[in-house]
């Protein structure tokens, strides 16, 4: 069984997810940010399933390992769709939403094809290795997409506060995970480093919930606050 700290982080993360969905419903934003809500609902369901499997089989059991990595693959796809939904909203005013969806489908198929091509070379169990690799590859595609999206937000002088903050949260989230991975490699023996990834898992629903609670759909940022562009 995981330690008390891990269980506490797990509980906080699940409560944060419930908090975000509740705030979205209360602020009548559930459908506006449907794919973000869907990701958080999937994450909550995956955590419930993982907790159930962990309770019955244990942390290092094959059942928990497979439940963890297969649900993780589904969650990464859901997160990718959430990033694309934000991109669609940002580019909607330029009538480019259709092309954003086209790029998204190409990216998803391309990543799946690339992953299959890599995994097919290996003699390991194909389905499991494919799930883990696809999850990791999509994570990096999501990371690059989020940074491109942030660039677009700055370039287009996007002023919708909620959109800007949600994209920024995603950028921080992906970057912090990469940072925690680096720390895990630099100092694998420190116990506190093991808790970094689960703590970061709480960050996204909390930041989205705060954004939904603090700002309305009509809230706008002044472009000058986004970036000072020299003329």
């Amino acid at each position: 069984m995981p330690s008390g700290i891990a269980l506490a982080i797990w509980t906080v993360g699940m409560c944060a997810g419930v908090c975000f969905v509740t705030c979205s419903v209360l602020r009548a934003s559930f459908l506006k940010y449907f794919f973000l809500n869907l990701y958080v609902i999937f994450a909550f369901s995956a955590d419930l399933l993982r907790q159930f499997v962990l309770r019955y089989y244990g942390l290092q059991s094959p059942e928990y390992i497979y439940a963890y990595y297969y649900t993780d693959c589904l969650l990464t796809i859901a997160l990718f769709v959430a990033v694309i939904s934000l991109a669609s909203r940002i580019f909607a005013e330029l009538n480019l939403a259709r092309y954003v969806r086209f790029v998204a489908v190409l990216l998803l198929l391309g990543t799946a094809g690339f992953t299959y091509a890599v995994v097919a070379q290996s003699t390991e169990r194909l389905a499991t290795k494919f799930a883990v690799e696809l999850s990791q590859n999509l994570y990096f595609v999501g990371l690059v997409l989020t940074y491109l999206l942030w660039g677009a937000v700055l370039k287009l002088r996007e002023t919708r506060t909620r959109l800007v903050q949600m994209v920024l949260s995603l950028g921080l989230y992906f970057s912090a995970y990469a940072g925690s991975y680096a720390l895990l490699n630099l100092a694998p023996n420190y116990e506190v480093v093991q808790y970094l990834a689960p703590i970061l898992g709480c960050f996204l629903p909390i930041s989205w919930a705060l954004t939904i609670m603090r700002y309305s759909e009509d809230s706008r940022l002044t472009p000058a606050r986004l970036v000072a562009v020299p003329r």
Partner: protein
Amino acid sequence: MSRKLGALALALGILVGAMELKTLVTAHGKTAVILANGVSPVPKLPPSSSN
């Protein structure tokens, strides 16, 4: 048509960039993969031998 080709080029560029970044980040990694989902404890990687 040119917009569709542009979209195709963009998708390929993102994919290549992402895979380059992955290679850079994970090339010297000794620990498990990067996973960006959820708050549950991360188990070890699935067994690598076929079963």
